[in-house]
């Protein structure tokens, strides 16, 4: 699992590459924790190369959403595949994020 972070002013684009299963979620948790600092602006989670997301991955997304709500920023989820979109839908997560 790879996390590629690009900051452009108030916008932070986070490329998620690979499978975001439980071990990967544990692995990238420190990077996601650091990202919470950037949630006063817009954080775009680019899921173009995200192949799979587990509950642990969803929890990481939720953590960012909570941080953004506290800091007045927003989380955008972009380029999600139909499979991941269906996970978001069946868990009721689709309307928690701005989806692009």
């Amino acid at each position, binding site marked *: 699992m790879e996390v590629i972070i690009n900051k452009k002013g108030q916008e932070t684009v986070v490329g998620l590459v690979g499978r975001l299963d439980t071990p990967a979620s544990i692995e990238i948790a420190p990077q996601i924790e650091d990202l919470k600092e950037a949630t006063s602006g817009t954080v775009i989670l680019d899921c173009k190369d995200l192949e799979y997301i*587990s*509950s642990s991955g*969803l*929890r990481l997304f*939720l953590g960012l959403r909570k941080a953004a709500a506290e800091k007045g920023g927003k989380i955008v989820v972009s380029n999600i595949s*139909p499979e991941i*979109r*269906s*996970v978001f*839908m*069946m*868990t*009721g*997560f*689709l*309307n*928690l994020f*701005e*989806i692009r």
Partner: protein
Amino acid sequence: MNQNLSPHTQELLEQYRKLLPVYEKMADVIPEKLKEFFDEAGIIVAAVEHRVKAEKSLAGKLQLKGDKYKDIFDITDLVGLRVITFYIDDVDKVASIVERLFEIDWENSIDKRKIHEIDSFGYLSLHYICRVPESSYNDPEHPEINKIRFEVQMRTVLQHAWANMNHDTGYKSGVEIPLIYKRNMSRLAGMLELVDDEFSRIRQEISDYRRNVQKLVASGNLSEVQLDGDSFNSYMKIRPFDSLTRRIASINQAEIQEVDLSQFLGLFKAMGFKTLGDIANLIKEYSDAAYQIACFQMGITDLDIISSSVAPQNLCTAFILKKGWGSGGLKSMLDALNGPSESNAFMAEYLLEQTKDLPFMNK
């Protein structure tokens, strides 16, 4: 020092200068104290203004009537506060807080709302002359704070606007204005009095409506309650989707993430729901179908977290499918919940395909 002023006036001005830091402290501390109490009482005010009388202004006043004051503590408007409320009935609520918080010098306080003759209109405001009791505030460095009297004016936004404009047009120029203009200002005062009363009446009616809705929701007479923002919020407080949400969560022993469900109001209205009873019927008639959808989708996954929006979302899905509104209806639902998007069309088709063989579709 101005040599034209009498020795007594100069003495008063000297006392004023010595006490100026105390006046400034009061002008800082008292509004904050008031705001704290307004917050506690749930009163939203438009503004709390404060000022310390400028030396020049005081000198002018003393030149005119300096003999009236034995010492500086006899002057009651050196520190002035003005509380501007939105509603006329909040003026009395603010007044009761001021009465509770400070000692009121009733002899010098004026209710200008009561001094008008029955057939005259004009300046309406409540002025209290107050003192901070030691029980409310005690500063050993500035014991004078408890001795100095100050003025609190309380009025509505409209009274404030009228008073300012009347002052601007009537007195500022120092020239007496013709009676016709005075009369026109009085007409406006009368009209604004009516508007103030009307705002309060409307607020009261809305409160009554909300209380009535809450009563009907609590008593279960949901079909009598029209579906709107207020009634929906009241209904959400009794958590009508909880039972289904827990049932869905039990599929994978999932953690439930509580989320705001307000976006469902628009969707329910778009589905033709008119009363809270329609939502109650949806829950009653479609809970099994909503559960079947969740079982089919989540049963083959290890997803152990769901948001509390799954239950109403699946209920709406089942309702739309049973009504035969097809993928178009599902897309409209997803557009309403997640924002319009082309990918919602794909998800709608996917949902339609997923659910077509579920038992509830064949009943």
